[in-house]
């Protein structure tokens, strides 16, 4: 296996060539180390699922011994992917999993998880957990100082109301505090204008992957790019960061540096 790509690849099967290729483009930007192979549309470029294109994409993704998670859009894309696997070499089939996941969100979540060199089951879980994106918002324990942002709600669609208190980040960064139970805790103010949007969320997941630690931001799993994005955290919000594990302190220190640097966006 070459080092260029993570051990788990993605195959994106859509009825539309444009949708498959566009989703691969978005996911690749957030996870450049993952082999992402789009298989969209029919052989002549129309809408549909092509047995041959899906088969070629699966062979492409799994050659060199990689595993692959397949994300599909509508019914016949699923049927086609299954039919392809029916006829493939069993040794390849054993390394492939079909994800029951929303197409774009599942692809992005799986790609970011795969980028951290996660194993097949973990990447599959990440894709399938993306369905929670459409569920009720998870409780958020952090405190928002941006008056315009509803706690736990989605990110504001338009420009945030101009609130003088939120215009300048407050100096509340506390540094890393070790709790009685051995876990660590820190708070940090988001500095970059767009807050925790897709790019910094993916950056956090990828940066934390090598650490032997479980990290939460405002109570959500910092290994999940979608959960981080769902926080809807904007500039001026105080993030509460908690972590457990042998490298919890180092992981949080590193995260504080990235937050303070505004993820390179300030």
């Amino acid at each position, binding site marked *: 296996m070459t080092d260029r790509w993570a051990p788990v690849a993605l195959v994106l099967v859509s009825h539309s060539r444009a949708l498959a290729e566009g989703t691969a483009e978005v996911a690749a930007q957030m996870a450049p180390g993952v082999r992402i192979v789009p298989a969209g549309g*029919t*052989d002549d470029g*129309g*809408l*549909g*699922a*092509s*047995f*041959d294109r899906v088969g070629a994409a699966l062979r492409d993704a799994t050659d060199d011994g990689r595993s692959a998670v397949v994300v599909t859009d509508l*019914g*016949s894309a699923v*049927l*086609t992917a*299954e*039919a392809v696997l*029916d*006829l493939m070499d069993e040794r390849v089939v054993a390394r492939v999993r079909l994800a029951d996941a929303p197409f774009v969100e599942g692809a992005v979540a799986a790609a970011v998880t795969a980028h951290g060199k996660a194993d097949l089951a973990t990447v599959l879980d990440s894709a399938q957990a993306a369905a929670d994106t459409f569920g009720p918002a998870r409780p958020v324990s952090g405190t928002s100082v941006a008056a315009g942002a509803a706690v736990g709600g989605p990110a504001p669609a338009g420009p945030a109301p101009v609130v003088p208190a939120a215009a300048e980040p407050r100096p509340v960064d506390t540094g890393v505090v070790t709790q009685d139970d051995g876990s660590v805790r820190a708070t940090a103010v988001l500095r970059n204008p767009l807050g925790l949007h897709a790019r910094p969320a993916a950056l956090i997941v990828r940066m934390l992957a090598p650490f032997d630690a479980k990290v939460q931001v405002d109570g959500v799993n910092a290994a999940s790019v979608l959960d981080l994005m769902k926080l809807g955290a904007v500039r001026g919000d105080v993030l509460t960061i908690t972590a457990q594990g042998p490298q919890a302190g180092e992981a949080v220190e590193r995260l504080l540096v990235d937050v303070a640097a505004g993820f390179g966006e300030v």
Partner: protein
Amino acid sequence: MTLDAAWAVDWVRRSAATVAEHRDELVELDRQIGDGDHGENLDRGFRAVVAKLDGLDAPPASVGDVLRLVATTLMSTVGGAAGPLYGTAYLRASKSGAATELGADGVVAMLEAALDGIVTRGRANAGDKTMVDAWTPAVAAAVDAADHGAPPSAVLAAAARGAREGAAATVPLVASKGRASYLGERSAGHLDPGARSSELILVAAAEAAAAAD
């Protein structure tokens, strides 16, 4: 009386002819409760199968060889759900029809394998207003005919009758699988296009067998 590879080739050619003849009808049925591409997709697929048969250097040796060629070609050329569904049906049937000649029991095993493939791939049950509603009574009628000592051609004739009755019975059903299920109650009152194409293909099988008698 047994059925051989020549029968299977004739079945495929008759299937292609009847699908082409009923192309517009299938398009219209699918337009009413689906996305309107079933007739066009299936016609394109069977034309490709016939082109492959025409291009073979030597005639296929077994029923299984013919059905495998149909399976792989339909999977590659039929878009939508029909490609993998029919493809899997023919693929499973090809594995059961590997013998050079099929008796009545062989025909029943082939039809059962095809139905099993469709059910496995589509996860539909009888009554969901799908292809399964044509194939299920077709297989039941074939089993019954074979149990009564019917020759292969009569077994296929029984299967064709079963498929015709099963397809007609999909009209009042409310779809619960596939694109038509998006319509809910509004899918009632329409013949299911997949059940209708299944009927056409099984009628072609019976006609090819009758011609071979």
